[in-house]
């Protein structure tokens, strides 16, 4: 059973890799299967990890204490009214509640969890106590943050001093993007190593092993 599974997995792996050469029926097969299997996978996950523990179990064990969970169930079901021609705009209510809630959550989260701490860590001591290099670093940090912020000014024309500063902001952005790109290459290469290693050690060597045992 295990070796069969490894063969299936390896076949599908090769199907996907074949796309690098060009689009072909094997890739299309794997792509379609992947779309189906993954959707099925999340149906299973949602049923077992969300609907069951968060809705069914609480209702089953203590209906009186959890009857209100029927409200979100109703809001959820309301999404399907789109298929009823006469009521096809009811679904808006569900979307409105969902979006409204998270828009509110995000608003305070962004202001409190991002703006304040990022501001605070930009306020750094401009003294020589950390050595000349420390001072330079702190200056770079402040200059970088402020010039990038200027770049994002929409209601000012980017001319003159503003234009110059925003240009510096773009340079900071490009430097950051370049560094981040180079930095990420490493993690991505290890993913490929992982896949090729699977093909070589699990599939090729595993099959040779199994054949050896058979003989």
């Amino acid at each position, binding site marked *: 059973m295990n070796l069969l599974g490894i063969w299936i997995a390896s076949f599908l792996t090769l199907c996907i890799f074949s796309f*690098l*050469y060009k689009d072909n029926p094997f890739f299309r097969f794997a792509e379609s299967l992947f779309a189906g299997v993954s959707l099925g996978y999340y149906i299973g996950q949602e049923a077992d990890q969300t609907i069951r523990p968060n809705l069914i179990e609480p209702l089953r064990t203590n209906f009186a204490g959890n009857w209100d969970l029927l409200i979100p169930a109703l809001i959820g079901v309301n999404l399907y009214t789109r298929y009823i021609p006469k009521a096809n705009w009811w679904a808006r209510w569900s979307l409105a509640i969902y979006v409204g809630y998270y828009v509110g959550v995000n608003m305070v989260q962004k202001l409190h969890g991002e703006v304040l701490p990022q501001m605070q860590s930009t306020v750094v001591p401009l003294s020589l106590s950390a050595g000349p290099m420390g001072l330079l670093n702190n200056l770079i940090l402040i200059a970088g943050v402020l010039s990038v912020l200027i770049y994002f000014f929409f209601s000012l024309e980017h001319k003159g001093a503003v234009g110059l500063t925003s240009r510096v902001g773009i340079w900071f952005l490009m430097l950051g993007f370049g560094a981040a790109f180079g*930095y*990420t*290459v*490493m*993690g991505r*290469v*290890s*993913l*490929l*190593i*992982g896949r*090729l*290693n699977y093909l*070589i*050690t699990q599939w090729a*060597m595993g099959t040779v092993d199994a054949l050896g045992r058979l003989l």
Partner: protein
Amino acid sequence: MEWLNRLMALDRRWIFLLVAIGTALPIIFPIGFKVSVTPPAKALFDRIEQMGPDDVVLLSFDYGPSTAPENDPMADAVLRHCFSKRVKVVLLSLFPIGGVTMADQSLARVLRDFPDIRRGIDYAHLGYKSGSQATMKQMGEDIHRVFPTDRYGMALSEVPLLQRVRTYDDMKLVVSFATGIIGEWWANLINAQFHIPVAVGCTAVSAPKYYAYLQSGQMVGLLGGLKGASEYERLVIDRYPIVEAAYTRAGLYTAIKGMDAQTIIHTLILLFIIMANVAFFAGRGRAAQAKR
């Protein structure tokens, strides 16, 4: 100058092919580029090196299959180190998607070379528990209550090793192999509250974040990505011949091999960039001449 144009418009499938070869070759034929050991990796190694057979280390598998190529080799290397040193090990997983499988597989790989290591005496495997943060805190009060049975269904009170391990106080070190936030929780939550030393093996992408914890003393060691793992492998191999034998076995995936591939790919990409720029400037020079 025709070749310049052709280079500029190089079919990217040639690049793909070179990347594939550059990655596959070192897995089959290891090169072994020299790896320099950084202080955070050495610090973790030294700490375990100072321990004896009575000491217990907790290994938390807080990653899943997606980052296994990076995290697996570190877990294996640390596990091999502990077993060579006869330090007792308790394993568990707090990562919901496939974490416990990672622990199972790592254990299986390493045990092949340590036939005399006994389950329940030299190591114990607690399995997976959800609720990450809450679970971690409860373990500070009583591990036996959090994990009524071990991974194999045996009551904890019947596992010899665990009879003397009930809280973090009974252990010398936590090492978390982490892909996400769980590693940070060990450092900024468990270390702060229970004062047990923490080391983390993390992915390359998240390594910069962990340096801050290292600097502030919330962590005693750090293995960052494949590079960190290869450093630890190097340390263990140089110190223990039995491990060296294990690492030379064909077909075993190691971070040192991974670093070989990494080095080749980085060099390859850099060469591509240089070639592209040479062609670009040569092309521009000609265009300028033609204009004149």
